[in-house]
Every structure is written in structure tokens, then in C-alpha cells.
């Protein structure tokens, strides 16, 4: 494996031009001042209570996501390419979703194996033939990107259900502007603070036709969800109600919320609740988080759900390999952003190759997320690989494998000082009347030395992300 590309330093340790002003600041600023700024950030995050809830061991505990003071900087020309690549990808994914729930042309054309779509548990038969406003399925997407080398960005995965993390992007920026205002005056850093406005505008734009002043709400599973802070944060920033299932009810296929002044009609639900739990009448019967009758109201076109029901079929890891083909099929274009080369273990040749090279590859569960259920070959033990091999052999089609990418590194504060740590990037893309993004996104950093897993549930931290305007 070649050494990882460092975002700040070139091969001979020279500072890349877009990092020069940060490097100067680090050199000029006495270490105790820097240390104080880091403490201040920690304190502020604690006081405001920007936390996530841990599942599994210590379940229910509220924890802080570590924030790293050193930003990740992206030059203007690179962001331009990434942005157009992201738009292209989300456009194709939306077209794909509309297609598979209507005419299924891409399957008829044989470009994607029908069985892989139609027999996938994430394919929602209930959605076949349901027409959505603007034919939009993915209103908010989080597309994870990694960099392997100069100008070499790959899409690691598409998150099209309820991608989270945008609140950290906004809070990280607020913190940086408070702690290091002088750096913002030295460089043209593109703003991101208007994201909640864009989101609200976007959500209002996808209300059913004829609704003049749509009422938008954020639907959360509740206080014990890991991303509850974000749900409350976004509702507050947009100035809309944060509701839980029991706050809503459906009468004659119209959704209302219970208010102190009687029922109030709801037009658009930004739901942060999985499909399965949305409506006990349509999906999981035991769901107490959802709203009985919601799906029927949805099918009648009386309420918009963002994201749509059934988007899981497009961000499933087994479908990931087909996204470049979707771009070609629906847009007639070549993909701007590359996929990571991927082995599908449902194919015998791929399976054989992967089992022979387990120690070099990353193996992921097709339906897994959050860094759970994966094997990182190079850092795994023999025992872990043996256990994983058995799991793979039991259900080969549940897995895909990818080469271990040398994710780029970025200087990061660690116990011993500043050291390179691996990072990724999750930009957020909004689809309403048009496709919009805010420059950058959430940079996640694996704080453990050599670790490639950046998820907050696995000990990852975050950094502010600076896209330079020129």
C-alpha cells in the first residue's frame, strides 16, 4: 500500500498552497493559546449539549463527538468537480428510484439484474405506481467521499435514507468562527450557515401541488435516538415543529398534528424515522413510533415524506456498484466521480478472490451502516478473519468487498501533539425544485492511529471543512 496522501503536506513535507495560511497561524500562535482554544471548544460543546446517544454497550449514554480544531481545506477547483459529480449522481439516483417504482426500464434493458432489485428486501412493493411531487425521492442525500491521491476522489457510499451529521457541520463552523476569527479574514472560506434555510425552502417546494403555505415538521423517533440532538437542532433552526409519532394523527387520509388550538394540517414531513417504523398499519405492526394511516395519506398525495419511502433500494451496498451504469442510462453521461472498485460476493469468481485476499480487503455487510458489521483486512486479526470468512460463506450475497483505500490524512490534534489521521467527507445534497449543496460538508476523522473507520459510533471525530471560494 502506498503512503497515504496528506491534505496539508506534499511528499517532501512542503505545505500545499491552500494550507499556507493555516500553517502560518500554527507557527505564529504560542502552544498555550492553541491549547486554550481547544479547551474552550470542549467546554462549549459540553455546555450546549451537542451529543449523540450510544447504542449497545453503555446504551443511552450521551456522548460528545470529539471536535478537532484543525480544519480540512478543499481548494476551489476540486470542490467544483466534486459538486458537479455529486449533482450528477443524485440526479441519476432519483431517476433510478422513479424508474424502478414505475416502468422499470433499466431492468427491462438488462442494465441491472432484475432479481437484485425486485427480490431485495429494501425494494418496497407498496411504492410501485405511487406518484411523488416532482418525482423526487431523495430530498436530502449524504454522499460519502474519500480521497486516495491528488485529484483522486471516490464515492464510498450513498446515504439516501436519513443521512445525519449536518448539525455537526454547522456547529463545527460556528465554533471555528468563534475561536479562530482571524483565519476567516485571511482566506475566502465559503459559508455554510444557510443550510437550514435551504433545507426549509427545499422542503416547502416539495409539498403537494396547490398547497400555498405548506406546514413542515421534523419527525423524530424521540429523545433516545442517537441523532436526537440533530433533529431538535434542525427543527429549531428552521423554525418548524419537532414532532414524535403520537403528535400526529390521520383522519380521512389527511395528516394533522395535535396542537393546543386543535388539529393543524401537516403538508411535509422531514422524517428521521426509518420506513419500517413509519406506519404500523402499513409496515412494522409493533411500531409505536409511527403514525397509523400515514402511508395511505402519503399514497393519496396528501402529505410529502422526505425522504420518500423506499429509497433504501438505491443506497444498498449491493446497488452501489450499479450507480455508474445508472448515470450512463438515465443521463447519457460518464460519471464524474468514480466508485471504489467493488467485488460482489454473490459472484463466484469475486467470492473466491476475496476469500483468498481477506487480509488486504475491506469487507462490508450490504445492509450494514455506521461502521458496524465490517472487516478491515489489514488491521484485523487471524481470528476475526476466520469468523468473518464463516459469515461470508453462510450468506455470500450479503457482502461486498473493496480494496483498502489509503484514505487521505489531515493533521489532527492527538495526545502527543499534531499527527496525520485518516479522514473522509460527507457533503449534503438537497433536491427540491433544483439540486443544491452547501460547499464542503462534514469531515470525519479516525482519531486512532492508522484507523480507517471514521464513524462517530466507532470513536471518530469531526473537523470543520473549508471550501475556498477562489
Amino acid at each position, binding site marked *: 500500500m502506498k503512503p497515504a496522501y496528506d491534505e496539508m503536506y506534499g511528499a517532501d513535507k512542503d505545505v500545499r498552497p491552500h494550507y499556507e495560511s493555516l500553517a502560518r497561524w500554527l507557527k505564529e500562535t504560542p502552544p498555550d493559546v492553541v491549547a486554550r482554544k481547544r479547551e474552550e471548544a470542549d467546554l462549549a460543546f459540553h*455546555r450546549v449539549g451537542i451529543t449523540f446517544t450510544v447504542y449497545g454497550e453503555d446504551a443511552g449514554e450521551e456522548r460528545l463527538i470529539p471536535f478537532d480544531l484543525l480544519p480540512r481545506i478543499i481548494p476551489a477547483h476540486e470542490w467544483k468537480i466534486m459538486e458537479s459529480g455529486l449533482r450528477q449522481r443524485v440526479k441519476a439516483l432519483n431517476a433510478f428510484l422513479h424508474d424502478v417504482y414505475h416502468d422499470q426500464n433499466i431492468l427491462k434493458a438488462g442494465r441491472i439484474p432484475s432479481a437484485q432489485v425486485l427480490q431485495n428486501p429494501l425494494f418496497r412493493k407498496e411504492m410501485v405506481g405511487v406518484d411523488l411531487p416532482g418525482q423526487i425521492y431523495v430530498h436530502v442525500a449524504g454522499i460519502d467521499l474519500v480521497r486516495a491521491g491528488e485529484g483522486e476522489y471516490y464515492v464510498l457510499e450513498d446515504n439516501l435514507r436519513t443521512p445525519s451529521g449536518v448539525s455537526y457541520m454547522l456547529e463545527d463552523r460556528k465554533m471555528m468562527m468563534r475561536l479562530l476569527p482571524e483565519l476567516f479574514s485571511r482566506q475566502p472560506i465559503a459559508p455554510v450557515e444557510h443550510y437550514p434555510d435551504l433545507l426549509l425552502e427545499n422542503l416547502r417546494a416539495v409539498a403537494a401541488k396547490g398547497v400555498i403555505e405548506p406546514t413542515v415538521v421534523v419527525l423524530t423517533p424521540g*429523545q433516545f435516538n442517537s441523532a436526537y440532538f440533530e433533529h431538535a437542532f434542525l*427543527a429549531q433552526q428552521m423554525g418548524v*415543529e419537532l*414532532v414524535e409519532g403520537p*403528535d400526529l394523527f390521520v383522519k380521512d387520509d389527511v395528516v394533522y398534528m*395535535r*396542537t*393546543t*388550538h386543535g388539529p393543524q394540517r401537516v403538508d411535509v414531513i422531514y422524517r428521521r424515522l426509518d420506513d419500517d417504523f413509519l406506519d404500523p398499519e402499513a409496515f412494522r405492526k409493533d411500531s409505536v413510533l409511527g403514525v397509523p394511516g400515514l402511508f395511505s395519506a402519503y399514497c393519496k398525495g396528501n402529505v410529502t415524506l422526505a425522504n420518500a419511502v423506499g429509497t433504501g433500494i438505491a443506497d444498498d451496498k449491493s446497488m452501489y456498484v450499479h450507480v455508474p451504469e445508472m448515470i450512463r442510462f438515465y443521463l447519457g453521461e460518464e460519471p464524474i466521480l468514480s466508485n471504489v472498485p467493488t467485488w460482489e460476493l454473490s459472484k463466484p469468481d469475486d467470492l473466491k478472490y476475496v476469500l483468498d485476499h481477506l487480509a488486504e480487503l475491506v469487507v462490508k455487510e450490504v445492509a450494514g451502516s455506521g461502521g458496524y458489521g465490517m472487516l478491515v483486512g489489514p488491521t484485523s486479526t487471524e481470528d476475526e478473519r476466520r469468523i468473518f470468512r464463516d459469515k461470508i460463506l453462510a450468506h455470500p450475497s450479503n457482502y461486498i468487498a473493496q480494496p483498502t483505500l489509503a484514505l487521505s490524512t489531515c493533521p489532527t490534534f492527538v495526545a502527543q501533539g499534531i499527527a496525520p489521521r485518516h479522514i473522509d467527507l460527507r457533503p449534503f445534497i438537497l433536491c427540491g425544485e433544483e439540486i443544491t449543496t452547501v460547499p464542503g460538508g462534514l469531515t470525519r476523522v479516525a482519531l486512532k492511529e492508522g484507523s480507517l473507520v471514521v464513524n462517530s459510533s466507532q470513536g471518530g471525530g469531526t473537523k470543520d471543512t473549508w471550501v475556498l471560494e477562489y
Partner: protein
Amino acid sequence: MLSSTADHLFWMARSIERAENTARMLDITYKMSLLKHATLEPFQEWSAMLSISGLHYEFTEKYKDINAANVIRFMALDEDNPASIYSSLKAARDNARAVRGSITSEMWETLNATWIEMKAIADRGIPSDGVSSFFEWVKERSHLSRGITYGTMLRDDGFRFIRLGTFLERAENTMRILDVKYHILLPSLQDVGGAADYYQWSALLRSVSAFETYRKVYRDVITPRRVAQLMILRADMPRSLHACVEELDTQIRVLDGPRSEELQRLSGRLYAELKFGRIEEIMAEGLHEYLTRCLLRLRTLGECISTTYFWAEAEK
């Protein structure tokens, strides 16, 4: 606003006020118990306090003897007792957390800090010479939360539901405190007007911060009838039933939601009776009987707030 938000705000405020009043009630009982009183059974005050809170059964389930240490433990720190100060402060914090977006950050931080400190106190336990200062701490945190609410919160419906919670809880507790002394600890005839009786009445007044007020208003000896008048009918005494119901009625009329006619009728009628009532009539009815009846009406009022605004019943 969302009914569930209003519900959380109402209970947040009620829980803080409840913690404060439980502290006040424990404080008066504690002080009364320090006075030797020949006609009372040992620990009768503590037993009285449990009956008045309706927690006799729950207490005896868990503790063998009724005594100061056990009742204070049960009413202050016991997490199994939903009416304990510990549980009330937890409920206040949990309700606040659920509606963080609808209260100011100062309010949230105050309730959160109170809860964190309460947990630490519960871990340490209350030392026997620290009982009064613990009650004072509870009162102070309640004053602080109310002051921050008053000083920082937008005067919207949320603010009004907070006021409803505060004053409904306070009204009920003023009734209870009065009843503890008057009904259960009523001394035998020869003790009426005796030293012990006097000290009990003054302890009661102090527990609702009304001792100096009494002196100022009446400039005369303490008599049960005047205490009752002060605590029930005086409009300018901030913990009196009259003052609490006046605030409830005002907020209920400003809220003026659809389906709120019955609620407005109930509160308006209660308010009118207090405004134009006379202490002679109350004493003629019997103070205990009167207080019992008032508590019932306050409970009905609370239920009506709930069905009118919180969708407590299934929607119709």
C-alpha cells in the same frame, strides 16, 4: 403550539413547584417536630405529612418506622417515590429536555445543573445537621428557575402553560399545608392559644414565607382564622389560593383555545368565589371540609386543562 410541547412545559413547571413545596412542607414538619407537644403521639407530624400527601401506603411498603429520618429520606431522596424532591427535579429536567427548543437556553441549563447537583446530593446523603440547608437549596433553585423563566422567556402560549403548571401546583400545596396544621395537628381545646399552638402556626406561616406578611397585615396575635384568611382569601399574598387562582384564570382566559369554554367556566367560577368570599362562611362550613372541597375543584381544573389542551383523551 404542539399539545405535547404544552404538556411538557406544564409538567416541567409543576414539577419544579412541587419540589419547592415538598421542601416547604418537610421544613414545617421538621420544625414542628422539634417542638415538644404533650398531646401529640411521637412522630404524629410525620405521619400527618404522609397522609396529607396521600403517600402513607407507599411509605409503609418500604419503611418500617415513621420517623423524621425515614420520612425525609422518602420524601426528599427516594427515587421510587414519584413525589419526592429527587423525582420532581428529575421530572422537571426530563420534561425540559424534551422541549429544549421551546425554552431559553438559560432555562435549560438551570434545570440541568439543578438535576446534576441533586444527583450528587442524593449520592452523598443529607447530613442530620444539613436538613434545613437542603430545603433552602431546593427553594433557591425553584426561585432561580422561575426568575429565569420570567426574565428570559417570550410571552407566548408556552409561557402561559408554564404559569398554569406553577400556580395550579402552588394552589394545591397551600391548601395541603394549611390542612396539615389545622386538621391533623389541631390541639386539644386547652392547648388552643398555648405556646405550642402559637409556634405551630408561626412555623406554618414561615413555611409559606408569610410570617412577616402576617405581622404587617394584621399587626396582631396569630389566630387560626386570620391565618386561614391570609392563605385563602388575600389577593396580595402571592401564595394564597386567591392569588394562585387569579393567575390561573388570567392565563386561561388569554389562552382562549377552541373547546375551552368549560375550562374558562370552571376557573372563572372558582375565582369569583374567592374574590367575593368571606372567611366567616368558610369557617362555618369547617376549614377542613372547605379545603378538601377546594382540592377537589383544583384537581378537576387540572384535568380540564389536560383534556382541553393536551389531547389527554383520544381525539374526537
